[in-house]
């Protein structure tokens, strides 16, 4: 990159050091080569963020890459690349680059395009373009001029006419607005970055798992959410079609809104979105369990009775009632503290805890095991044992909570970008000059001009205009 620039070094002599640095920085950020550097660097750096899986627990990096490389990954923040200082500095450089370039280029362009009609018209300007054509007509100059104007009008060009000596001059233009496409696009990028910043400063993301009938308190909001129902739809083939949650918004204890959400259909309430993001089977409670009586001496247990969660049920053919009060998916007992816990969320060793009553009196609180029936007697000193025959797990619905006030700014930016692209890629600014020089008998029409992009279109257009001038 060229470090020295005439403008800067000339100005720098009379300036304080900070002004000199300031103008050097300004010059740096005004450079297209910096743009190329930042764009390509951003692209290359981003590759690391896809090859190295992001935001894993530290030990996973050590396991995958070894301690030495894991250290490098953490030192360079490659585990959370897109939030690292390096990446954000690159984005900031790009933003500064855009801002400085816009400040530097937009005002003169705006002025020039605003005043393009009052430019001094040089009769010989037509000779200067590579895109130029000449034709000679056997009509008077005035007629030729009329035809030229008509041809331009048909192509929706705006025109101005001048005369210089015996020459008639026409200046025609079209698609000026296309010149602002790049500026509009650049501003849209700044808007999108702004939206992202607003989102990360003022928004939050959260997640809650909730059982049917349960409520979740929404962080930083004055309402609650109740899950009325969660269910899964299946295709006939057995594949999962959709996950659904029926939600109720509760405000001050009152139901305000019911809404069924599914993947692709979130609930939006007071600036916060709620998404169906996962589901699962609980490891600490069940919906109901099948409990059966097994009498001493009999080989098989009797028919099981369905006992709902926290409900007291009289067991037939016995003097006992049971209440279902606990469940663990993967039973484990901690001897030190005397507590029961679940080793994992998976149902590897499911067990339920019962309260057994005899005539209204609590006589036992056993854990009974699905896989090990009768391993411990459920009721001490009794000829009756209880066995767990099966259960229906309780499903929970995983709801993602997301508040992002920057989203709308991002969408605005995207819309502006769309306009910018249409202007930048599909609206071409053409400027055409025509010199009509008559000598009484015949008239020479010379046409030339320029286009800011897409020369093919232009070459053809010039030919078409000339054709209609000739044939008319």
């Amino acid at each position, binding site marked *: 990159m060229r470090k020295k620039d005439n403008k800067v070094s000339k100005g720098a002599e009379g300036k304080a050091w900070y002004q000199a640095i300031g103008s050097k920085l300004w010059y740096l950020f005004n450079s297209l080569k910096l743009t*190329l550097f930042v764009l390509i660097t951003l692209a290359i750096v981003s590759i690391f963020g896809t090859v190295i*899986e992001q935001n894993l627990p530290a030990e996973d990096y050590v396991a995958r890459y070894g301690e030495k490389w894991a250290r490098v990954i953490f030192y360079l923040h490659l585990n959370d690349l897109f939030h690292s200082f390096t990446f954000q500095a690159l984005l900031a450089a790009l933003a500064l680059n855009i801002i400085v370039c816009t400040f530097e280029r937009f005002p003169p362009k705006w002025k020039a395009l605003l005043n393009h009609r009052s430019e001094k018209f040089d009769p010989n300007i037509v000779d200067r373009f590579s895109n130029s054509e000449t034709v000679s007509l056997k009509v008077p100059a005035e007629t030729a001029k009329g035809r030229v104007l008509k041809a331009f009008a048909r192509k929706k060009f705006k025109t101005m006419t001048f005369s210089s000596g015996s020459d008639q001059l026409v200046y025609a233009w079209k698609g000026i607005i296309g010149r602002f496409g790049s500026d509009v696009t650049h501003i849209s990028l700044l808007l999108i970055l702004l939206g992202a910043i607003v989102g990360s400063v003022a928004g939050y993301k959260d997640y809650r798992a909730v059982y049917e009938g349960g409520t979740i308190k929404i962080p930083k909001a004055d309402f609650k959410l109740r899950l009325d129902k969660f269910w899964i739809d299946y295709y006939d083939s057995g594949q999962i079609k959709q*996950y659904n949650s029926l939600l109720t918004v509760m405000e001050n204890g009152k139901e305000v809104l019911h809404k069924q959400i599914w*993947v692709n259909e979130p609930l939006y309430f007071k600036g916060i979105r709620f998404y169906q993001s996962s589901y699962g089977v609980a490891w600490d409670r069940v919906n109901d369990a099948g409990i059966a009586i097994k009498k001493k001496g009999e080989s098989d247990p009797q028919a099981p009775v369905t006992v709902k969660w926290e409900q007291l049920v009289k067991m037939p053919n016995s003097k006992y009632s049971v209440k279902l009060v606990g469940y663990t998916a993967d039973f484990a007992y901690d001897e030190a503290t005397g507590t029961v816990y679940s080793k994992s969320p998976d149902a590897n060793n499911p067990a339920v805890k019962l309260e057994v009553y005899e005539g209204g009196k609590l006589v036992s609180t056993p854990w009974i095991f699905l896989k090990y029936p009768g391993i411990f007697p459920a009721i001490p000193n009794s000829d009756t044992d209880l066995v767990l025959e099966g259960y229906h797990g309780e499903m929970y619905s995983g709801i993602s909570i*997301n508040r992002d006030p920057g989203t709308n700014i991002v969408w605005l930016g995207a819309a502006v*970008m*769309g306009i910018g692209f249409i202007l930048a890629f599909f609206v071409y600014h053409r400027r055409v000059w025509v010199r009509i020089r008559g000598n009484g008998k015949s008239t020479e029409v010379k046409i030339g001009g320029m286009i800011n992009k897409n*020369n093919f279109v232009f070459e053809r257009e010039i030919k078409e205009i000339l054709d209609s001038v000739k044939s008319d």
Partner: protein
Amino acid sequence: MILSLVFFTFSFVFYLITGLLYLGHWLFGKKWLGQIATSMAYVTLLSTTMVLITRASESGHAPFSNLYESMVLFVWATNIGYLAMEYRHKLKVLGAIVMIIEFFAMLSASLLPYRYKSVEPLNPALQNKWHWMMNVLSPFGLQKYAIGWLDFHVFTTFIGYSAFAISFGVSIIYLVKNRYETNGRHNSLVDAFPDARVLDELGYRAIAWGFPFLAVGIVSGAVWANYAWGTYWSWDPKETWSLITWLVYAAYLHARVTRGWRGKRAAYLSIAGFLAVIFLYWGVSFVLPGLHAYA
């Protein structure tokens, strides 16, 4: 299942024939060969369109939901893009390269393992239809034909990919042609190509279509992700690679207006951009884990 397979097989053979015809036109410079090649390209386009239509009617949703279907979409869009370019710029010699790329794309689609090809119902994350369109169509009982972000997102993205594929082909030819022009060497096959100046412009025109379409694809994906995943951007490998691709082409566009970067370096950027597209399309699906793993 059967009908779309029949059309696929026909299209597959047609692309080979079309490619050979264009190749013959390029090698022997016979005008009639070029004319047959062009009409054959239209027949092939029709046949590819039929693959998409029959596939949609067999699966009951737009044929954009797995790798095989998206390959056919890619081939279809590239064919249209090429024919549009041929029509606008009256250039047939590029057809040989484009149609042979198409043939290999079809070949790779047909070689995909079964699980990337089978007709599957849409999984929960892919089910998205526009409510307004359902509302418009439901009085006529046509709501099952409503489309949604899935269709829009995939379609616009693949128009982008196709444009990039064309610009990739053009850029390679540009580099060859440019070398011959600067060395003043001649070769009847290379001479058949348009001037380097024209090729540079053509490559740019293709990217001028691809770049905004990729952007629309990215933005529509973000809008959809905001519905389905709860956030418009999550740095998923597919998202990140689409951004990488977009950045490379942004660099290309800026290179073309920067002194010293015009021409050759811009062409290299265009080639790098298409390599990024290939990785974005295939590499991410096969190599990197992430939310886009299904396509």
